[in-house]
């Protein structure tokens, strides 16, 4: 629970879904009419977790009713809708944040600090990698339900996860409209795991800005399921592993000839040991929750409301991500290789 906040009501167009949520979490009131909830509860903050096609209409209603808005990703189906959401929030003077939780994991915050302090130098190249296990409940739901809302998005499966790949690149790329080459396909490995029917499930993207380039990878089949970011800078290269919760700088080769290749593994091992011990420390102080990034993000969002400071997820970042996503989908769904 965010300090100083309490959940006063839940709303779902399906009353039984609102009911189960309220019962499970002891939430005092439940609604199936959004307008009725806004009218009766007059909440300060609204968390919108519906499928994305409803986000624009709900955000407009919410900011008109005086609510700050926390949105689940993907922000909307199309970039134009995302622009309209940002405009609606800005015009009303209300705060808007998007659930980019991995960006608020301790290691991601540390990476941001290193970058801002110049430890990395200028970014040369970024590699953002996200794996997904479609053998789980989510993949099963998409496979079994031919009418699943994910199937109806312009970017289908990719649109539901690509925010988490691209938002990590955004802070390092100065260009708002870099060039993009995207390639998607459906993996046919014969692995004994359920696929998602006719949906593309592998995506590779090359992004080229004026001074910085990036690779974005989404994979459903690589194992173990990875979630990493590598930032190559002019001074240092940093590697963040979101699953292992580590951030390490690549070791410099300080010794000449073969000696220079002898010591780096020990240096890397020492760095990982330090990270592991730090994580144990966090765990023992109960600061190691599974969605620690979400806790940090929510705390920052509520803090920005109280102090009237900028939102933790900037409008530039939100628009950059949605713009790149739309361009990727235009490419891969115009010419698919199934």
């Amino acid at each position, binding site marked *: 629970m965010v300090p100083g906040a309490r959940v006063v009501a839940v709303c779902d167009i399906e009353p039984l879904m609102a*009911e*189960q949520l309220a*019962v499970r979490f002891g939430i005092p009131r439940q609604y199936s009419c959004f307008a009725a909830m806004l009218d009766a509860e007059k909440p300060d903050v609204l968390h919108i977790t519906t499928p994305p096609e409803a986000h624009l209409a709900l955000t407009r209603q919410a900011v008109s009713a005086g609510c700050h808005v926390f949105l689940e990703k993907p922000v909307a189906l199309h970039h134009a809708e995302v622009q309209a959401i940002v405009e609606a929030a800005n015009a009303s003077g209300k705060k808007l944040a998007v659930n980019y939780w991995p960006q608020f994991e301790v290691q991601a915050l540390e990476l941001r600090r290193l970058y801002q302090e110049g430890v990395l130098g200028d970014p040369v190249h970024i590699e953002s990698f996200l794996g997904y296990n479609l053998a789980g409940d989510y993949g099963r739901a998409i496979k*079994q339900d031919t*009418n699943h809302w994910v199937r109806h998005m312009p970017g289908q499966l990719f649109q539901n996860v690509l925010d988490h790949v691209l938002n990590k690149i955004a802070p390092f790329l100065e260009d708002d409209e870099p060039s993009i080459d995207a390639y998607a396909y459906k993996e046919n490995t014969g692995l004994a795991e359920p696929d998602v029917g006719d949906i593309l499930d592998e995506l590779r993207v090359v992004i080229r800005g004026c001074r910085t380039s990036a690779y974005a990878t989404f994979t459903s089949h690589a194992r173990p399921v990875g979630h990493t970011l590598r930032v190559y800078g002019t001074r240092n290269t940093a590697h963040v592993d979101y699953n292992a919760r580590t951030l390490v700088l690549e070791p410099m080769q300080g010794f000449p000839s073969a000696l220079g290749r002898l010591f780096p593994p020990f240096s890397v091992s020492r760095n990982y040991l330090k990270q592991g011990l730090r994580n144990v420390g966090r765990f023992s102080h109960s600061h190691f929750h599974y969605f620690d990034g979400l806790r940090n993000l929510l705390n920052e969002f509520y803090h920005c409301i109280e102090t009237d400071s900028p939102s933790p997820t900037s409008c530039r970042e939100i628009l950059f991500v949605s713009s790149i996503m739309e361009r990727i989908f235009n490419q891969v769904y115009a010419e698919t290789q199934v």
Partner: protein
Amino acid sequence: MKVLVTGAGGFLGIRVVARLLEHGYTDLRCFLRDTSKAKRLEELVKAYPAARLEFASGNLHSKADCAAALTDVSLIFHLAAGKSGSCADLFMNSVIASRTLIEALEARKELPIEKTRIVLISSFGVYGVGALARGAPVSEETPLEAHPELRDPYSYSKLRQEQLFWEYQKRDGFELVVLRAGAVYGPGGGHFSNRVGLQVGPVFFHLGGDNLLPLSFVENCAEAIVVAGTTPWAAGQVFNVHDDDLLTSAQYLSRYKKDVKHIRSIRLPYPVTRVLAWNLERYHRRSLGQLPAILTGYKAASSWGGNRFSNEKLHSTGWRQLVSTPDAMKQTFEYFRQHRAKT
């Protein structure tokens, strides 16, 4: 009489269709989400030349699919339900899907709803056994769970599904028969009910000890569903479904190790489980949820407190156990042994 079976392609559904055919029902419609499962049913019906099997493929979230499936149907066996996933998924697939089906039935014009019977397959999970003393009997009169939020999501979704059917039955007047099944097992099913214990990493924690398991072999369960579900006086009644000669949790695990494969297990006596649960629950609260409360005092009492069971009421419908427990175990464990590489 046209009979509809939802979830007909599932572990239990196929057996229910088989028992319906055996009991002489010849006009069956099978509702399937996954049409690839029709093949097994088509094979099944070949032995009954007089029988006609139709397939209604679709999604129970679609009122149109439900309406099409309900055409001319006067007896419905509702087996479709969510078995896994998040609480929201389970609610969508059990509760919301059920409501869509009932609303499609309400909207149907050609047959009066009062002349329709629904046989709902519910679960022992709906009982509020966490509040009972250890060893207390569980019968059809045992109160329903008063704190579903403290139980596992599956039990909560099945409880709400059953409540929903009773609410609509009062309003619409259709005939409702509810069968609350115990731990259904058999070839193609799961290896262990949670009542035996929990697999944590490489170790199986045996938590059920010498508690009786309300086991129901899948063929026997299907027979119970058909017999009780079609008994004229069963309208408005609830029946607990389990076999006659029940095993204890320890006996089941011991035979599994002997007949299927050896697994590393640690037996935790019930008081130890309660202490462990109490500590985990306390840690969960103190750490603000750093580790999930997978084991709580209430869950432990509900799953491993230990109860006695009776299927006397089921017997009064004329149901008899088709396959003896030793034969059922033999069939099941033989299947598990042959398929163990896949588990």
